[in-house]
């Protein structure tokens, strides 16, 4: 029974993956065209040495392939993508694939940690608020959520830096994933907190975690609100339903009623929202990445966009689209686990 359920989920996931390919292709072409329609000539921008003239501009144009017509460029670009080549960034001078591969783990590590902190905070908050709707606690949770959403992440980030780094000196300096004087562990996963553990370097692990806490908290503060609100709403529905009344009437323990029956049934929408929140955070954490000098993909894409560096922006959008597809898949699979009925349809 379980096996067939899991199998059905997998088949569904596979079908989803296939059906998302045309969408990915569309995103690819759309971004490509959009970048070319935007005003601003990257060649002129990058040829800004004190003596760069027409010749240098032409040369950069050739180097970036901009001397060809747009349809030709598109064909070249698609064939490059087919060969796993995302082009070269003018800004960092590196292949985009290499840049993204180095920077994606940083963004993922930050986003995962932030999401984890947000979930750990939001789910209990939502449950407590739902258990006593209209009470002081409910209002307190609402106020906290409103504050979290109102304060932009860079403001909370700067505030956290000011208090914990500048005033009290508790946090390490907010410059990237690891203190510049710490030596890095051999790279295995790209997630520093895991790599340090694998290398058995606990001091390094602690240093990496300390760097991670402030940016993760400032990101988490921003997404606690939607998660807590949706938990509360769906818990209210769940607590008011027949099966919870029945469970209460037969005298099951409070814990069993709330956690096992009510929460498990209420968790589906929370998973959906968490999936969406995760994808959004990955792209939208650019402000946090800037404030904490975090070497992630979002700040990379923003810098590229400002300087009209086509290849990194296109690579970034493609990456985000693919991640979105993946996250949706994972959400689908989580559905199946949380509620086996889903996979039967």
């Amino acid at each position, binding site marked *: 029974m379980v096996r067939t359920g899991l199998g059905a989920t997998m088949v569904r996931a596979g079908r989803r993956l296939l059906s998302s390919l045309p969408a990915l292709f569309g995103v690819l072409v759309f971004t490509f065209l959009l970048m070319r329609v935007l005003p601003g000539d*990257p060649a002129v921008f990058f040829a800004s040495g004190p003596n*760069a003239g027409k010749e240098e501009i032409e040369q950069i144009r050739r180097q970036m392939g901009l001397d060809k017509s747009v349809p030709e460029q598109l064909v070249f670009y698609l064939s490059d993508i087919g060969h796993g080549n995302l082009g070269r960034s003018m800004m960092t001078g590196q292949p985009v694939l290499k840049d993204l591969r180095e920077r994606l783990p940083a963004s993922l590590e930050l986003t995962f940690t932030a999401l984890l902190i947000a979930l750990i905070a939001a789910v209990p908050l939502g449950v407590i608020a739902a258990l006593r709707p209209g009470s002081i606690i409910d209002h307190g949770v609402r106020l906290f959520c409103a504050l979290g959403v109102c304060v932009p992440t860079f403001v909370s980030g700067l505030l956290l830096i000011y208090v914990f780094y500048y005033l009290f000196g508790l946090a390490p300096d*907010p410059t990237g994933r690891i203190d510049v004087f710490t030596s890095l562990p051999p790279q295995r996963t790209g997630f520093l907190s895991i790599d340090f553990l694998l290398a058995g370097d606990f001091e390094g692990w602690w240093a990496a975690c300390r760097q991670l806490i402030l940016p993760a908290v400032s990101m988490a503060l921003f997404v606690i609100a939607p998660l807590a609100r949706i938990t509360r709403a769906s818990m209210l529905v769940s607590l008011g339903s027949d099966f919870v009344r029945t469970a209460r009437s037969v005298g099951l323990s409070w814990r069993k009623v709330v956690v096992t029956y009510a929460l498990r049934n209420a968790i589906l929408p929370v998973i959906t929202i968490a999936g969406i929140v995760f994808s959004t955070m990955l792209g939208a954490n650019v402000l946090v990445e800037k404030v904490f000098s975090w070497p992630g993909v979002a700040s990379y894409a923003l810098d590229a966009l400002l300087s009209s560096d086509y290849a990194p922006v296109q690579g970034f959008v493609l990456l985000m689209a693919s991640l979105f597809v993946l996250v949706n898949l994972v959400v689908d699979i989580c559905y199946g686990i949380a509620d086996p009925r889903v996979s039967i349809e």
Partner: protein
Amino acid sequence: MRFVSFRLASSVLATTALLLIAAAPSQAQTRAETLRYVTGASVNTLDPNIPGSTRESFALSMSTYDRLVAFGRKQLNGKWVFDLDTITGELAESYDVSPDGLKITFRLRKDAKFQDGSPVTAEDVKWSLDRCVTAPILGKAQLLTGSLTSADQFKVIDPLTIEVTLPKPDKLALPNLATVYPMIINSKVAKEHATADDPWATAWLKEHTAGSGAYAVESFKPGEQVIIKRNESWNRGSANKPAFFKRVIVQSVPEPATRANLVERGDADLVLDLQASDVQSLEAKGKLKVISTPQYNAVTYVSMNNQIPPFDNVNVRRAIASALPYEDMFKAALFGRGAPLFGATWPDGKPANGIYPFQQPVKMDLDKAREYLKAAGLPEGFSTTFSFNVGQAATAEPMAALVKESLGKIGIKVDIQKLPDAQMSTQINEKKLPFFTEGIVAWLPSTDYFYRNFYTGNQRWNYSSINNPDLAAIAQEARFEPDKAKYEEAGRKLNAMHFDLMPQIMLWQPNQDAVMAPSIEGYTYEFHRQVDYRDVSRK
């Protein structure tokens, strides 16, 4: 009882102190011997010649490579700045300029070695200079300004002597060899990595170094940080010893407030690109050393396109020049941190000297501005746009608001346009912006160089798109003028024309605010406007 506890406390204290002293030196020493420099920009290539390379890349290459010659330094108002007129040997032990000025002979240091231990020879020098004028790289356009255009001009005399021949006696030839691009590369190593498509190994040198410089690259993460370590055998510094710092960390920190926090807390040693407001508050607190040098080879302009109506009318340009609230703009944009290029008094109506950039006798006088508008046939004013780029928003935004307000008083309606950097440079290049603010910098700031590059030709850097044959001819002639008095005379003529034609309005030379730990010494304002890590030391 009291006595005992006192003894206990003091012994605990003493033990702790001892432990601290025992533990501290090893760590403290390495920190003291390390320079941590933070910046909002980043290094994107190890070869500054690659098109698109950043200013931080220029600065890095000064430490990783040597050149034949280097600029000396001088004191300007009590601050150290580079000196264009003193050229000292770097890899060259000495040099001779022939009496007719057409031949420069360099004798190389006998003890100079590349970082891989092989000696620096005239062959390497020739290969590197050939590369600079032949390969499709940035050095080509730079060396052109010093009449260095062809590989035939560089001749190996013997393994330690190289001769450079010039078509005309050009006073910028020698200074050009001290700029960022003509760095001396280990040609044997570079040639090993050259390919048929890429005979000058540009692809390889972008990610690797093969130089003889004071520092070797330890790790390079584009967009994040570069760590360089000292080359112990380098002795091209002033006192025949290696550079001071054992390690230099160049780290990108995009948020200016964070950079200010880092240097204030002592975690970073040196930073150049803070916001003017942060510099002011740090200076007021007095804990850090702040060295503010007017960027005397840079200028910020309010530019008008002399080809687009109504700015093609000289009286409109004069009206604008009389209507700008200079003092307020200077305070709002820069907090007064810079050298003003307005408000001069010329008693006899003539320029005080032939040096460019110079202070013009312009000041806000709305009545005069209205008269000029009337003379231009536009007494009711007109509408236009005023553009600046996002990257300069911190200074340009308050400035633009003041421009709009003041011009509104004489009937000129201004729409403020804030453009992304790439878009702004494209529009400037295509000569589409009527009215905007921008800045320029010249590595080799001589009067004729400024006028030739920024006031002639249909090219990007001629912001005002001025096309005045007389001005171009005087500047061109001055380039090869050996007589100092005549050169000065040409400079005065050009400056007088500038004020008369008012192609664009010089506003100021912003300060370079170097904020550093009190222990840092030797900071010098360099032509590339970045830190030369070889200059600085810790007391």
